[in-house]
């Protein structure tokens, strides 16, 4: 077997990989457009407030782990207190903060230590005390003070204390739309054939947005260079990617910053896994695995409405840490549940979603790197003409360009949160920049995550996320 054989063989491999990826992206775009259209048709003609009269509306606990959040905790708690829902409680879990998070919240909302009965169904670090307000306006606010154990541990203690049907896991610094719970709960009461075990919603970038009393009053396109790219990335990931997987009931990812779960199922599978940094992905995979093993017809729903706003990293360093962590989390989950890979026992998850995660989420950066090396080798040894390589590269770039532009269009056509011509031109410009700056950076972060996981054995490190806080509304 000579060089020609290997050249052809590797060529064929890359073509199969790129070809299937290209087809998958096309299918994804079509499926997501279908699902978004279906949802819009329904939601534009449906007044969600009518749900408030529904007697069987499930009760919800909002669990928000807080670690050193003294500066933002009051505003964010106020935002949670103003949500439109009847039977809900807010559980702020102070995960052993080193600053004054606990005293700030106690003082502001007039909380007192109470006796509260709970069962430790999921192991978690010691709970030091539970606080509730004597002010009836805050009757549904509860603060759990516990020893530090990490985000997953804090969420587990929140699940233990909660006694509601569903729990909404959120990052305390997120801004939630007032009707978010109503929209997220709807799939739970709407599907007579499947048990809905979780539902997620679209997360949008809140950097540079104007916030008053924990509510977004004006949506601005971020001023920061890195945040601008992430707006586009979030459009693609949420509007196109997740909607398409929802259409075929193959969704595996509900963001840790904003996800509603069936408490009973989550408790049955043992809650969040404290040994991984990708606890959000891992929990959904475990819950779905459990449902397949017990033979229950189930579904993970996703709402394409922008329901949650979060601050994204604004510096290259913080961004690299976040993406590194996401990569490690994905690898860890894949490794833990590797028996699902092309396993027909797990239905669409085993045969499509999980293999997709393995091949196109985990391995893509590695294959991309190998592809680049291979191309260089081909050029050096003059095995392919520069024209052919340039054409193929241009094909990939223009397709990616079209894909991102479509995501911007879907946003403008559906929810139209970002307004103004200036934003549209900027976004279009950043679609072009993205291919040459942001995507190579992301490739680098993912590769670094792989290196950290396999060679440095750094599986649990979170890294710090520096937040700049939200821009206040300008006053005259």
């Amino acid at each position, binding site marked *: 077997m000579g060089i020609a054989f290997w050249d052809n063989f590797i060529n064929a491999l890359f073509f199969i990989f790129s070809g299937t990826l290209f087809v998958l992206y096309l299918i994804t775009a079509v499926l997501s457009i279908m699902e978004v259209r279906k949802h819009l*048709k*329904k939601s534009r*003609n*449906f007044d969600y407030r*009518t749900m408030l*009269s*529904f*007697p*069987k509306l499930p009760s919800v606990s909002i669990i928000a782990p807080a670690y050193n959040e003294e500066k933002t905790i009051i505003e964010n708690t106020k935002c949670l207190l103003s949500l439109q829902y009847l039977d809900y409680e807010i559980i702020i879990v102070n995960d052993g903060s080193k600053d004054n998070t606990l005293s700030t919240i106690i003082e502001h909302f007039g909380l007192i230590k*109470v*006796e*509260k*009965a*709970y*069962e430790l169904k999921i192991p978690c670090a010691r709970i030091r005390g539970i606080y509730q307000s004597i002010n009836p306006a805050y009757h549904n606010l509860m603060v759990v003070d516990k020893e530090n154990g990490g985000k997953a541990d804090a969420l587990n203690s929140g699940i233990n204390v909660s*006694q509601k*049907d569903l729990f909404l896991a959120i990052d305390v610094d997120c801004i939630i739309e007032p009707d978010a719970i109503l929209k997220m709960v709807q799939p739970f*009461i*709407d599907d*007579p054939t499947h048990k809905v075990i979780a539902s997620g919603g679209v997360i949008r970038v809140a950097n540079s947005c104007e916030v008053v009393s924990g509510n977004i009053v004006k949506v601005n396109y971020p001023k920061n260079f890195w945040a601008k790219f992430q707006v586009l990335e979030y459009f693609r990931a949420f509007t196109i990617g997740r909607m398409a997987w929802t259409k075929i009931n193959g969704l595996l990812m509900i963001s840790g910053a904003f996800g509603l779960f069936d408490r009973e199922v989550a408790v049955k599978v043992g809650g969040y896994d404290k040994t991984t940094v990708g606890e959000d992905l891992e929990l959904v995979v475990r819950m779905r695995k459990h449902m397949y093993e017990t033979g229950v017809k189930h579904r993970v729903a996703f709402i394409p409405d922008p329901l949650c706003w979060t601050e994204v990293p604004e510096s290259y360093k913080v961004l690299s840490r976040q993406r590194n962590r996401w990569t490690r989390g994905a690898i860890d989950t894949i490794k833990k549940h590797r028996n699902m890979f092309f396993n027909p026992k797990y239905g669409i998850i085993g045969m499509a979603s999980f293999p997709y995660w393995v091949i196109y989420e985990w391995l893509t950066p590695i294959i991309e790197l190998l592809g680049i090396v291979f191309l260089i080798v081909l050029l050096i040894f003059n095995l392919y003409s520069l*024209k*052919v390589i340039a*054409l*193929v590269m*241009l*094909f990939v770039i*223009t*397709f990616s*360009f*079209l894909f991102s*532009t*479509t995501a*911007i*269009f879907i946003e*403008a*056509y559906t929810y*139209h949160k970002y*307004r*103004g*011509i200036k934003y*549209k031109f900027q976004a*279009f410009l950043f679609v072009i920049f993205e291919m040459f700056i942001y995507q190579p950076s992301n490739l680098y972060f993912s590769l670094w995550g792989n290196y950290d996981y396999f060679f440095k054995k750094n599986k649990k490190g979170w890294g710090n996320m520096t937040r700049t806080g939200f821009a206040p509304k300008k006053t005259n």
Partner: protein
Amino acid sequence: MKTLRLYLEYWGTRLFYITVFFLICYGSYCYSVPEFSIGGHVFKSLLYHEHHNLATWLYYVEYFIFIFIILALLIFALTIYYGQDKRRKEKTHNRYINFYISYLLRFIFSKDELPEEEIKLKKKKLGKFIRNDYSRELVINTLQQIHHQTIGKMRSDTEELLHELKYDYLIRSYLHSPYYRHNRIALNTISEFKIHGYESYILRLARHGRNKLLHTDALVALIHLNPSGNLLLMIERKVNISMWEVNVIINNIEKDNIKEIPYAGLIHSENKGMILLGIILSRLHRKKELKSDIKNFIPYPNDNISEEAILAFGAFAEDESDFKYLGNAYNDATGRGKLSIISTITYSPDVEYAMHFLEWVAVNEPIKYKTEALKFLLTINMERVAKLKESEDPLVAMACKEVLDINL
């Protein structure tokens, strides 16, 4: 004619997209060959460039690069257009709505004081404003809102105005339109103004409609048109209704204070949704005579029906035997059912039985039910709660502390 136009518009746009898609695909073929034939005629490809000297598949690649760029630019242009268009539409919509609301309200309010001539003139003027379907939809919506929120003379004036404006043809064509939005407008109008004559078509929508919201609207319209007759018809035709639809129907029945309901027919139907509707309505309208029928649904395989049966039976429970029956049903009940039983048994005439039951729940059941039972036990006998506080089971003690802490 109007319905035909709507169908042409609906299929025309779809046909246009399909044609564009096939043209793009065919274009890729034309670009990769020097000539092609259609129906025996050979055409020279204008797109083919021989000087490229590329492998055939690369022609496709080159072609699609071109198509992607064109599409991306087109989509970008559309993004800007839609953004602007949306703003414009929002403004126009608000302007129109404000105008129609104020005009119609002023007209209906002052109708009795105006001479016949002026009323005619005003109606004519209104007709002039309403030139397109969009305006008509807004007027219909406005009239619906006024009709919904008013009573007496004003309400009947609104009905009169709707008929005088001769919207019947529009409602008929909208009901048969391929657009879901139109169907909803028609159904809501029929429902609000009780326009008869469309029942059989609406019943068809309720039986076979694939769209959930449309299905719900069709059910509501049927209930509004003829509650008793249409409910019986729905039972007979085995129309499926979901839990959500049961709730919507109940809200409408309560709002309109409808009392002619075939309670027994609903409870004894084969359809789970109908049974549920029957049980809930019997409870809300205090139909005590159906107590024994409802009792049969407590041990039922459907959770919703079982829960509602517990709630209704609990509301009608009088004798000690009723409360004991509920107590015996506790173990097989769902979570909500258990909570209903706990609260109901508290009111048992046999206080000792009630206390014994609540104590049993507090000791043996999970924490959620423990605290609930203790809360009710506290209202009957505080000493028993205080005694349980000393329990060796830390969970029982903890639950007692919580209840005492909150309530005292």
